[in-house]
């Protein structure tokens, strides 16, 4: 007898619980891609919650994937703090000049209150509208920057590293403030209707900060912050390699780990199963130039190696599909998941 087709929500929660759903869940992290779908500029697209809601629903149906993504752009938290955002035609809005010009300003830094901030309210409105439309059928993913990684946007990465290594007192002050903001921001999204929070934390990757320093600095902040977020979280290292810190991340209590295209598939499965669900790891940049056969092969490879036993959500490895990826590649990825990702998996399937 053919198994019943699960809703996206059931599919994802089954994978999260280390069991095999009807098929491998697919998350296409389509944020600014919605502007392309709507045929409008990135700036115009993100100016109105209605645009994002309409695009998310259209793209969910078109690509038959398993999440609604309430992420606007990483720089929105900096924008909420009064920082400059630079828009480009075909890419994500980026931060302009650092919002914290000098470490001496950290002591008196006031971070915004989420519920009265114009920028952040736009995101909450998107989540509320999406929830009203889909109820519990489709998971809605909210996003925060980790306190440890947000500081790189606040100060600029170079200045932040100098603060981290040479001025621990100011570093700790900034982390305390960022953590309070992050918890409030994550919980506001959950209250608005998000089902899980993607906690972007590229600086936790040993590609960026060596493990020993991370464990002594950002890691305690991550543990503290994650423990106060009132819903499931995905620690996402935004393309950064995860293997050397996998066990540490499992200990934070995060339910999901966003892994890198640089991580070895066999080893990551071995290190994580059945303790944390994996999210990844299609190379979003190479995807720009794939043909449909390459897309199918990549999907198949990940499913074959990481899919058995559940605990895999197929996604790109960065948390954002680039504007330049052709629609036909996203459709090919989706079709390949329908073809190769049906449980029980069949590694010999042509």
């Amino acid at each position, binding site marked *: 007898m053919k198994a019943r087709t699960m809703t996206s929500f059931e599919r994802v929660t089954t994978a999260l619980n280390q069991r095999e759903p009807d098929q491998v869940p697919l998350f296409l992290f389509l944020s600014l891609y919605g502007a392309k779908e709507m045929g409008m500029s990135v700036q115009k697209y993100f100016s109105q919650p209605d645009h994002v809601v309409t695009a998310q629903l259209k793209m969910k149906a078109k690509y038959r994937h398993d999440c609604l993504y309430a992420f606007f752009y990483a720089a929105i938290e900096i924008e909420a703090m009064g920082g400059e955002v*630079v828009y*480009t*035609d*075909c*890419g*994500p809005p*980026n*931060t*302009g*000049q*650092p919002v914290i010009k000098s470490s001496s300003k950290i002591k008196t830094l006031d971070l915004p209150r989420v519920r009265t901030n114009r920028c952040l309210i736009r995101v909450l409105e998107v989540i509320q509208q999406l929830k009203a439309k889909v109820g519990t059928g489709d998971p809605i993913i909210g996003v925060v920057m980790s306190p440890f990684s947000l500081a790189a946007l606040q100060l*600029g*990465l*170079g200045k932040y*590293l*100098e603060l*981290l*290594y040479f001025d621990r007192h100011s570093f700790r002050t900034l982390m305390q403030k960022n953590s309070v903001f992050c918890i409030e921001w994550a919980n506001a999204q959950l209250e608005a209707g998000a089902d899980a929070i993607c906690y972007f934390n590229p600086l936790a990757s*040993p*590609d*960026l*900060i*060596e493990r020993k*320093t991370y464990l002594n600095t950002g890691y305690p902040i991550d543990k503290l912050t994650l423990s106060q977020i009132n819903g499931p979280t995905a620690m996402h290292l935004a*393309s950064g*390699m995860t293997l050397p810190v996998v066990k540490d991340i499992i200990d934070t209590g995060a339910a999901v780990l966003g892994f890198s*295209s*640089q991580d070895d598939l066999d080893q990551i499965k071995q290190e994580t199963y059945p303790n944390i669900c994996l999210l990844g790891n299609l*190379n979003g*940049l*190479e995807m*720009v*130039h794939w043909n449909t056969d390459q897309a199918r092969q990549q999907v198949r490879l990940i499913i074959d190696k990481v899919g058995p036993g559940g605990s895999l959500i197929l996604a790109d490895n960065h948390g954002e599909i*680039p*504007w*330049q990826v052709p629609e036909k590649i996203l459709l090919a990825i989706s079709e390949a998941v329908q073809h190769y990702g049906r449980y029980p998996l069949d590694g010999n399937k042509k």
Partner: protein
Amino acid sequence: MNKIRASIKEFTHALLQINRTEAARILNRCYKSENDFCQLEQIIRESLDHIGTGWEKGIFSLAQVYMSGVICEQLVDSYLPQAAVGPKTAPKIAIGVLEDYHSLGKRIVSSVLRAAGYELLDFGSGLSPEKIVTKTIEHQVDLLLISTLMLPSALKVAEVKQKLQHAGEKIKIIVGGAPFRLDPQLGQRVGADAAGSTAFDAVSLIEKVYKT
């Protein structure tokens, strides 16, 4: 020879620990014993090279690479006047960040090149293709180093190349940054003469590209 190898090892260790006091002490000891700036330059260059290679292999972090560069840049600045060694002025090199304001890569490359004795012009960050081309022509640059953080800005290197060609300039372009590291074919696609996967490729790429 064993003595200099031991100093390189010790200095590398201090850099990896981000211990600027210890790094300065080691260099000072070497300089006092040999009074030879070239030896200091060798210690710095080989240590940074070792750290860069380690980063490429996933052994060391970007923070260790960057902070080592910051420490070495400060040390080179403090020894250059004493050693009275002139920086290399040819080829004329400039560096800039296309489109965005994240200048970490630029800073690392600048540190590595300065530590290797190169002088370079800094065009800054947040540059449009038009602006970087105008500055390049205005300063009669031989080699342009472009740093990018995100894919859209990396793709704009093609526009820079095209504008330089339209202006009749044959300036060589070397690119670097995350998009080029994650997609090794991207440099070629945007028309760069070379793409570095780490800042430490810069010295060898400059020598290679400038000779062609």
